[in-house]
């Protein structure tokens, strides 16, 4: 058999019907994750056609996007602030009941952001195909799964058949050599990669991140990297399972039974791309020269090392429009710019390690006067862990707000928004116009950089505070 990439192996193992020039492949989906925002119309379709969920055992729902993060609204008597959001939450609860789908409901201890809980609970496993009506499904590729976002019509297809019609994407190897320096994180790495290949550089491709700098990353860091594959336009991002992956999987509530473990491990180990496997495209990055990164514009590719200056490409209408929106001028340094809001959270950087990094900077310090800082854990489990480790206390003492889990200010659907014209340093993944609220100005960065900037009230190189 010719040498195959990890993607080729996972794809081939899930082809129910191969593609032809006239017809796409029928691809089997092992795990279908759903949430309240992109599923209601799919359930309406099932209802209209008299269909059921074909494999409820392969379908899991959670509430994350439009859910409140205020404790009183989840566990207390306070009603959900936004009526439309409340309706959407109740609609998913009703759909789960009617269609027999497991739901990690509002007060469930396993609830959280869909891309955080999949791996955390052990639903996500190497070699699986995983889809969700959400573009950051690429996160799950950190465990060697082929995971990608789909639209609501396709959500309906998977609910009804457990399959999708798909054309086979191409592959792009992202070879990361060297090792990240102190204070430089996986977030900085993926921002640098997007800066290099551009926001449409991965279109039509599945990225495989590989090389010594990737092997050195923890599971949480790998998820941060794969999470933002879509910001380069890619279908998915994958990292080959190794000892780090196996150690992580061994601790999951839904790990394979002891009798099945060895066979599962053998299968997972065989997933890595064969030596000499051909990728359609390549890019190489040296991690050791990277610095903390921060965005200055209105897409994640408009990014620079934190000590750098905003580019001065006169006459570039895209840059001019972005800078006008951000209220920045070409040639200005990023360091020292005033910050109004700091958000730590999201499926990119809402895991325990991210909260630990945030606490490392905040411990014994205070959020600068006039700065609002919101720390939102990626899941209820992470919330409990952070509280047990005393991190929540560090955040509170520093003057930050500590919330229940959810997407929160990443997209501002639940009312956690950045005011118009305010500048936010955010550990999330999108700095699009209006992403965190109408008129909000978003700077994407690592938890270190976010926390350091919260403390000084200015864009700050976190290495000065570490």
């Amino acid at each position, binding site marked *: 058999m010719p040498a195959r990439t990890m993607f080729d192996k996972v794809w081939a193992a899930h082809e129910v019907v191969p593609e032809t020039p006239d017809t796409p492949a029928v691809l089997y989906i092992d795990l279908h994750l759903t949430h309240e925002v992109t599923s209601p119309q799919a359930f309406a379709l099932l209802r209209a056609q008299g269909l059921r969920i074909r494999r409820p055992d392969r379908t899991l729902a959670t509430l994350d996007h439009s859910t409140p993060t205020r404790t009183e609204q989840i566990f207390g008597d306070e009603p959900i602030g936004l009526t439309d959001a409340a309706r959407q939450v109740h609609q998913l609860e009703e759909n789960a009941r009617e269609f027999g789908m497991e739901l990690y409901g509002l007060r469930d201890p396993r609830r959280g952001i869909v891309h955080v809980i999949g791996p955390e609970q052990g639903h996500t496993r190497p070699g699986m195909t995983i889809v969700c009506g959400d573009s950051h499904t690429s996160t799950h590729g950190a465990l060697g799964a082929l995971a990608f976002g789909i639209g609501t019509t396709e959500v309906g297809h998977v609910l009804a*058949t457990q*399959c999708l019609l798909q054309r086979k994407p191409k592959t792009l190897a992202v070879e990361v050599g060297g090792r990240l320096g102190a204070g430089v994180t996986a977030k900085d790495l993926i921002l640098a990669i997007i800066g290099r290949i551009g926001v449409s550089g991965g279109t039509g491709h599945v990225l495989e991140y590989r090389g010594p700098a990737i092997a050195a990353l923890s599971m949480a860091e790998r998820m941060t990297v794969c999470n933002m594959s879509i910001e380069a336009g890619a279908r998915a991002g994958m990292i080959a399972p190794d000892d780090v992956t196996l150690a992580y999987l061994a601790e999951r509530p839904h790990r394979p039974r002891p009798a099945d473990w060895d066979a599962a491990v053998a299968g997972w180990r065989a997933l890595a791309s064969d030596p000499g496997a051909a990728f359609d495209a390549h890019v190489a990055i040296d991690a050791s020269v990277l610095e903390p990164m921060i965005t200055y514009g209105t897409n994640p590719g408009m990014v620079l090392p934190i000590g750098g200056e905003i580019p001065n490409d006169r006459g570039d209408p895209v840059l001019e429009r972005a800078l006008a929106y951000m209220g920045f001028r070409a040639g200005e340094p990023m360091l020292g710019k005033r910050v109004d809001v700091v958000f730590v959270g999201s499926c990119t950087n809402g895991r325990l390690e991210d909260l630990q990094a945030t606490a490392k900077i905040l411990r014994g310090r205070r959020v600068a006067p006039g700065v609002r800082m919101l720390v939102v854990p990626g899941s209820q489990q992470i919330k409990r862990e952070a509280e047990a480790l005393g991190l929540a206390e560090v955040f509170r003492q520093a003057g930050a707000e500590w919330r229940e889990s959810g997407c929160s200010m990443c997209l501002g*659907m639940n009312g956690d928004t950045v005011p118009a014209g305010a500048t936010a340093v955010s550990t999330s993944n999108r700095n699009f116009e209006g992403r965190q609220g109408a008129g909000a100005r978003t700077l994407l960065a690592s938890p270190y950089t976010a926390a350091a900037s919260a403390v000084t009230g200015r864009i700050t190189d976190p290495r000065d505070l570490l």
Partner: protein
Amino acid sequence: MEPIKTLRSTTVVMPSTNIDTDQIIPARYLTVTTKTGLGKALFADLRYAADGTPKPDFVLNRAEAAGSRILVAGHNFGCGSSREHAPWALVDHGFRAVVSTAIADIFKTNALKNGLLPVIVDPATHRWLVEHPGAEVAIDLESTELALPDGRRVAFPIDRFARHCLLNGIDELGYLRGQLPAIERYEAAHGR
């Protein structure tokens, strides 16, 4: 779905690159549980001032944009989230095609499933369209060509299966459900 064969319309031009799905429809409009009525949220932050009044300089608010069914947009249109609310909003507003030099993957898939044609053209054709807003063009799905007013015809790529479904009004879910015997065989053979 209604079959689509040809589409003739004047164009509306939004030349910005990377028009993302948050611009097409901001997240605060995603709390709906139906598909209908999203046209009024289309490009909401670009289209309306904070008090809800239309911004007169935004292209969709100009008289000549009324009734246009073809949007000519900059490179990498539809990047960002998987929200199908983006094509729903465009279709609800009245658009039936988006013409660009590149269209993001998930958006393209979602568009095809809602009868919104993703038409990818070469940079020279795109430049001509951007420089001639309001031009009357025709999109022929049978011949997969875009016809410019001067008679030039430009071929555009489109997935053959999606084209077949659109031309014949075929519902992809119906086709996929026709594969259920193969799906059951796969599940039995692969321990699913």
